[in-house]
């Protein structure tokens, strides 16, 4: 069983490679087609034409596009994504420095979205056929209308500005030092035994994570509800009732277990989207993750950095999708038997 799952994961990862190659090639072509000259940008404004030409040659910009791509790809495989024009540092190092903060935010948001989605889905299902159903239904559409961008601003307004109970800028209070071990500030602060940093980081994480979690929970709610509807038509539900089980036991013990499978697959796709949703939330809360770095790079047309970050987002989303697929097989006994 473990072996089959492993082969499956391996196969999925192999299938992702051609997609990644095409994605990186597309990214490369789009960014090279821009009316921006990376050579001229990486030199001081008073550089002569000859100097720019020399820099172009040095950066390989005078070669044909396919050759440039192969050079870039060879570097990328060794973890060398070129140098950021504005920061004058390796683009790969910049991404590596900000990725942990983004992952931390995404994981917190996913947990929250999962909990809210599960609770909300069960609630939506429980009110079926009652007077509350249209109300709950309308409410879920209303919630579905609020994207993470708006949630971020609404929460910032309510808890940060109006009630002033939570901080809404940065990842930790400005007077506290940021420990640099793994980059995951929650983990690092505990490792060095600084509880004050840990608490402050948690407080700073609440609003951004809640904004993302709230934005993605309605989809999970609605998927779970319709899966529960489907499952309730099955014979074993009737059987469980005939055995005298309480409605609560039927729902939580039997229906939920089977409804959670389709929910997981459909919600899994959402988690990939959620990860890229961190970008906006980071910008709103000035959270020092990859999203803010990306916006910074985009504003300054920092091509090598845009390329490195864009590719990182794609890789993470592909990995999440692969993980969800594999989890589906692990959890689904029907697929396990072959």
């Amino acid at each position, binding site marked *: 069983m473990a072996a089959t799952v492993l082969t499956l994961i391996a196969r999925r990862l192999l299938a992702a490679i051609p997609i990644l190659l095409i994605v990186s090639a597309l990214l490369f072509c789009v960014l090279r087609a821009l009316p921006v000259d990376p050579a001229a940008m990486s030199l001081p404004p008073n550089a002569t034409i000859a100097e720019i030409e020399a820099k172009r040659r040095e950066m390989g910009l005078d070669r044909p596009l396919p050759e440039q791509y192969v050079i870039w790809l060879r570097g990328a495989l060794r973890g060398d994504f070129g140098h950021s024009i504005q920061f004058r540092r390796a683009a790969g190092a910049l991404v590596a420095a900000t990725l942990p903060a983004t992952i931390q935010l995404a994981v917190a948001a996913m947990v929250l979205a999962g909990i809210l989605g599960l609770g909300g889905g069960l609630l939506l299902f429980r009110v079926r056929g009652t007077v509350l159903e249209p109300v709950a239904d309308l409410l879920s559409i209303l919630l579905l209308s609020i994207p993470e961008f708006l949630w971020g601003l*609404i929460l910032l307004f309510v808890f940060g500005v109006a009630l002033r109970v939570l901080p809404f800028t940065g990842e930790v209070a400005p007077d506290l030092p940021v420990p640099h071990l793994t980059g995951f500030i929650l983990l690092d602060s505990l490792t060095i035994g600084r509880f004050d940093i840990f608490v402050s980081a948690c407080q700073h994480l609440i609003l951004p994570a809640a904004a993302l979690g709230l934005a993605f929970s309605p989809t999970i709610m609605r998927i779970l509800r319709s899966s529960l509807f489907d499952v309730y038509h099955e014979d074993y539900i009737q059987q469980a009732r005939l055995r005298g089980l309480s409605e609560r036991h039927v729902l939580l013990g039997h229906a939920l277990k089977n409804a959670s499978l389709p929910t997981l697959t459909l919600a899994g796709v959402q988690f990939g989207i959620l990860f890229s949703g961190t970008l906006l939330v980071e910008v709103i809360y000035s959270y020092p993750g990859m999203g803010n770095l990306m916006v910074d790079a985009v504003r300054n047309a920092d091509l090598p950095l845009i390329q490195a970050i864009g590719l990182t987002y794609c890789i993470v989303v592909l990995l999440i999708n692969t993980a969800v697929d594999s989890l589906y097989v692990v959890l689904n006994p029907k697929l396990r038997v072959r």
Partner: protein
Amino acid sequence: MAGPAVRSLRSPRVLIALTMIAGIASCAVFAGAIAPHGPGEQNLLAILTPPAWTVGGDSNYPLGTDSLGRDVLSRLIYGARTAMIVAFFAPLGAMIIGSILAHISGYFGGVVDWIIGRMVDVWMSFPPVILSLILMVGLGVGISKVILAIVLVDWTRFCRVLRSEVLIVTRHDYVAAARLLGFTHWQTIVREVLPATLPLLITLVSVEMAIAVVVEAILSFVGLGVGADQPAWGQMIADARQYVYQSPWNLLLPIFAIFLTVTAFNLLGDGLRRTLDVRLAEAGR
């Protein structure tokens, strides 16, 4: 087709949504007549004034002013114009590209279907936010660029969903009958397949309108949207975010405007889905 259309118009969801959209659209169309000030008109002597009903408010600026002394109400109204233009044209473009490819893909199948399918796969492995940001770097700012970016990102939504619908419709006997009657492929698609996929298409468009409004707001918020000279809700939010303690209203009002517009389009989509989808409508859900 008269049946579902009438049924849709009787649905309270659709009616409420259409009323809301009509309201926002008339703000957009008659912005010049309704707005008390020009959208770019600055009054540096009246910066960040609160709304007229609060302490320190000025009746000249009913909803207050922003950090450059521009009238918030007027900018909200002109912002509706920007939002509505994007909400109308972007889904239209995405629908045209997406549905043409979906019909070709689902109807002909085979190699064409495979190629289009892989294209969609590759496209969708780019997270939408990232892809639109990268496109905006290349396209530059401006309302037409925002529309183009949304079209280039979101045609896949239409293509993927419609393709499976086309696949189902194409298997029906009446499509084969049309071919036997001597219809060309083109005629069969336009006269037999398209009418059957139209309800889904309309629903998708209304949902895409909501998405377009949000994407425009996001791009303008990040500063890569319609450009500084064009008033947009996202820009107002970005400006208000910096002065959030001095004038919280400036943040709240454009958020509310976006929320209202997005809810209206989503409600329309939901109402249309319930009334236009024959299977759903018959089940009474």
